[in-house]
């Protein structure tokens, strides 16, 4: 399933890509931003960094049994630091359709448009 985030910067596009990934699983509006965790990633370029960022979220969702709905991404170049908020998954409340197995390099692209806005996209395996 393809996901795509748009924003005024790389980091904003990364935040929106994370919202899109949550939307693959459930309606992000049903996920209360009550619990905060921190995530750090490092990769050789922006595209690998997007995949690492999404896979770090997949890992946190799987091991903490959480869903996330609010994301704040910081960092430049090869590094990223993020604060993310969400809550424990509740099948009655969230009706999660699928779990994301991982983010892939298929249709992977991160970059600015001519108008200066950024896009961050890839296919996630479900």
């Amino acid at each position, binding site marked *: *399933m393809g996901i795509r985030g748009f924003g005024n910067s790389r980091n904003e596009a990364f935040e929106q890509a994370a919202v899109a990934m949550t939307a*693959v*699983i*459930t309606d992000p509006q049903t996920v209360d931003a009550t619990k905060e965790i921190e995530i750090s990633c490092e990769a*050789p370029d922006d*595209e*690998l960094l997007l*995949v*690492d960022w999404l*896979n770090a979220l*997949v*890992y946190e969702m*799987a*091991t903490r*049994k959480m869903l996330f709905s609010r994301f704040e991404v910081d960092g430049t170049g090869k590094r990223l630091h993020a604060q993310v908020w969400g809550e424990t*998954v509740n*099948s*009655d409340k*969230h*009706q*999660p*359709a*699928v*779990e994301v*197995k*991982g*983010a*892939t*390099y*298929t249709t*992977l692209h991160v970059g600015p448009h001519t108008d200066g806005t950024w896009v961050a996209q890839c*296919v996630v*395996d*479900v």
Partner: protein
Amino acid sequence: MDLNLLKRESEFAWHIEPQGKMRVPGVIYASESLIKEMDHKVYEQVSNVAALPGIVDASYAMPDAHWGYGFPIGGVAAFDAERGGIVSAGGVGFDISCGVRTLHTGLKREDIEAVKKPLADALFHKIPAGVGSTGRIRLEREEMDEMLSGGAAWAVQHGFGQREDLERIEEHGSMRGARPEEVSDHAKKRQRDQMGTLGSGNHYLEVQQVTEIYDAEAAAAFNLTAGDIVVSIHCGSRGLGHQLGTEFLKRMAINASEYGIELPDRELACAPIDSPVGRSYLGAMRAAINCALANRQIITHLAREAFSKVLPQARLSLLYDVSHNTCKVEEHAVNGRPTRLFVHRKGATRAFGPGHADLPEALRKIGQPVLIGGSMGTASYILVGTKQGEALPFSSSCHGAGRAMSRHQAKRKWQGRKLVDDLAGSGILIRSRSMRGVAEEAPGAYKDVSAVVDVADHAGLSRKVARLKPLVCVKG
């Protein structure tokens, strides 16, 4: 897919002539109508795989092929280590050793009709399914490593099932060459409480009725008759396999240039078989195969417990267990010479013909059962491997229906609750924790599994034996 791009070699075999960097041709097995429906991306991906180092014979796609990452889903490709062959995490898939297991029950349709509802409820209660579900087993470090070395045999040693189950599993229930030390702590942590869980998406446990027999001799050898009730389980290596797929895709992408491999696209990430990354992946991937075999074994045990409460006369015994996302070392004839190959099957089922030494004695004369899962409201099929198939894509066949529509489109088109009610009206009980999940898995979102299986049969990849109709479906 544009038919003009292909050369029709026979009614069901379409060739892509080598061009550009392709080292071998591409071959797609399909009918004209399946080819027309097939995504153009399958053409690109089959061609890209044909350009990878050490590929042997051809880059193949099965009749249910669709767009995957790197390799198509439904792709089969074999590599020779002595000719610089590679191993690819994308050629196996994220859900390593995802597969299907079918169990006899010793019951007939009339035995379950009156208790179908309590049976569906008991199975749904017993078998953890869906996002975030956990099993009742929690594996700490040492036990995790034992499970990753032992597979289904480990599960049987721990009281989940019987010794005779193991004979009816590929690799006799335990994949050799597993190296738990190559499995990361992250992957192990993700798996710690996921043993004996179905997962989500297209995974399921179904109670099915044999509705048609196509091949009386094979059906007799498989102990199947019309009206029999069987149980089929479709799931894989859960979080552990997913995490390994993620990690090795990255390692292989970053290291490819070091090994002098020119990737047309990062998603084709691979490593030479005989390289540190290649050997590390093979050891970890085999451990993940054991994880999947142990997982299906534990779910079998839970299904037995559920049946014993509702239908104590049921005796659940294995017909067979196949994995359809693997890379395995097998011997196949290349230019008439037996050659040791690393056969990648991603969304494709091994289909050994009669006489193969790896088959259990009871099945050796007839050939390997090939278990094909359909979508939840339609049908599943049992086929058998053939001698003819050995000369085709390394004894491989299709694995399922394959999606025809995206999850997003399906969610807009169907409502989960209405689908559950409609299917109940036609005698199929669905149990799921997510109505949205049901909508995304609507039968209409999949290709016609019968058309896929017919091509597998006509093309000689495997031969149709029996058709199964679902009666109860616990959705992942």
